[in-house]
């Protein structure tokens, strides 16, 4: 177990370094960040100002040095200052991150609430209309592009029925504002979770101990929920941790569609288009760290639950 943990942690560190190097190199290749300070092709800026800017942004040093000094400062919690907003990156990310996290959590809840019960139902009523219905929803659901689902939900519930607001997060925590974005975000993972729960449940229902529980005369309800369900839940729950990580990637599209005041749209999307590289790097680091953390927890949880996996 200890070797497994050490190995996994080492992988996380290597992946983190690789991912940040990749991102850092990409932003270096992007357009010159100095241009951001220059109003239209160098008008109104002297050579001295230009050189001072170069020094201030640290662009006069070799790229490798720039990377390591950035990494060192980042590990101390200093992500630098945003070029376009003149604010510390950490402050910008933290102010926007809550909305993204709440949206991801809401999406996760929706995915679990839809995916797991329908998966169990499809497995228990295998071969019936319920199974067929559940599986078709999963297959069709996975084929719908999320941005389109979001827009169609807006049309239906926002425009035609007028029940729900179509944009923004509202004031405070407004459940009404969360419904459509969370559903859009959770829709695709719900389908994946449903398939996973179904196959896991089918496997368990076929096992000896479930047959024994039935043979000794236990009620169907007890067999399914108390004996089978608990064990069948392991794969879907561990992979839903990965889904949670995937949500943070998926939020970009959902935040864009619903004009959500979250980190992906308000910090990163605009960061890309203004080549605000400190902001962009900071944001990507946060996303990568969260993804790696969830992947690590999912891996350890798997290893903990099923010791066979550890030795592979």
């Amino acid at each position, binding site marked *: 177990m200890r070797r497994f943990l050490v190995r996994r942690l080492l992988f996380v560190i290597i*992946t983190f370094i690789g991912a940040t190097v990749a991102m850092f190199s*990409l932003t270096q290749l*992007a357009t010159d960040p100095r241009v951001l300070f220059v109003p239209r092709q160098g008008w109104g800026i002297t050579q001295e100002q230009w050189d001072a800017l170069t020094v201030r942004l640290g662009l006069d040093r070799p790229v490798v040095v720039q990377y390591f000094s950035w990494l060192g400062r980042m590990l101390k919690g200093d992500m630098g200052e945003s070029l376009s907003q003149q604010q510390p990156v950490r402050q910008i990310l933290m102010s926007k991150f809550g909305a993204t996290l709440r949206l991801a959590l809401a999406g996760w809840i929706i995915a679990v609430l839809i995916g797991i019960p329908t998966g169990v139902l499809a497995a228990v009523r295998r071969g019936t209309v319920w199974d067929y219905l559940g599986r078709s929803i999963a297959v069709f659901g996975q084929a719908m592009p999320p941005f389109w689902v979001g827009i169609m939900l807006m049309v239906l519930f926002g425009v035609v029925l007028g029940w729900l607001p179509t944009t923004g997060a509202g004031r405070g925590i407004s459940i009404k504002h969360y419904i459509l974005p969370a559903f859009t975000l959770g829709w695709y993972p719900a389908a994946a979770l449903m398939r996973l729960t179904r196959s896991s449940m089918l496997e368990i229902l076929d096992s000896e101990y479930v047959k024994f529980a039935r043979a000794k005369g236990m009620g169907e309800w007890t067999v399914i929920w108390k004996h089978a369900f608990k064990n069948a839940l392991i794969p879907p729950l561990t992979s839903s941790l990965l889904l949670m990580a995937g949500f943070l990637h998926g939020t*970009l599209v959902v935040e864009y569609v619903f004009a959500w005041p979250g980190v992906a749209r308000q910090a990163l999307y605009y960061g*890309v288009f203004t080549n605000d590289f400190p902001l962009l790097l900071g944001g990507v680091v946060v996303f990568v760290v969260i993804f790696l953390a969830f992947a690590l927890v999912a891996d350890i949880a798997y290893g903990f639950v099923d010791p066979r996996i550890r030795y592979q």
Partner: protein
Amino acid sequence: MARVESEPQIAAHTTWMRRARETRIALGRWPVLPLAILAILVAVAAFGPLLAPYDPTTGDLGSRLAHPFTPGYLLGTDHAGRDILSRLIYGARISLIVAMVSVTIGFFVGTAIGVVSGYFGGVVDEFLMRVVDIWYSLPFLMVALVVVLILGQSFNVLLALLAVLAWAPAVRVVRGQTLQLKEMDFVALARIAGASPVRLMFRHLFPGVLNSAVVIATLQVGHLIVAEATLSFLGAGIPPPTPSWGVMVSEGRDYIATAWWVAFFPGAAIFLVVVAFNFLGDWLRDKLDPRLRQL
């Protein structure tokens, strides 16, 4: 008497049924509907200019946002008065080319890396697998946006990005299968017979992993079409006014309060095509490599 007469009829009926059933089992059940959708898609993409009633990029400003079933405009028009049906037809070409080219590149690159990684093992394998891990941990859309910012918004950049998206899943599966295959006797015998590593990988291992790679590639097409549409939707894919389905949805987003059809039809087209590809992929998987069911 009537009963006696009917007997040969029953016999004929049953032999006909049996024969039909035998052929059906031999062929498996063909995914007729998905294949039909894809055939229509390919035909539309190939003969688009002949089929489209209007030019996809010039609109009639006199008939902006016309409803579906308006005479002359079967699926209505968008904010610039461009015929949605014509734009869908031209968009089919874009979607199909982008998905096919990127999946082909991804298929060859991914399979090659997977076989090399599995065959050599050790440091090579470790390195390549870490690259795949790093790739999975990066938020793809962010990376794609940055790359588009650097290289500019163009068709070739989009193809390259999607090809990069397509290779990673193939690597993992192909590598796993190569690991199993290379322990088999026929590989050892080929090595004894003096086959070079390149020959071993190309002639002996590659055919063994081909089925899985084809299945993975087919199942990838749907994802790639959605990814292309998403990038175009976010303004980092096909540059407008070229009619891409993602761009069309994006343009329709601004008019949802008054004209739902502008965003609805391109999304529905994506949905239909992706469903068709997914069904085809599932069918191929069951035929060629049922082990991949877990995916």
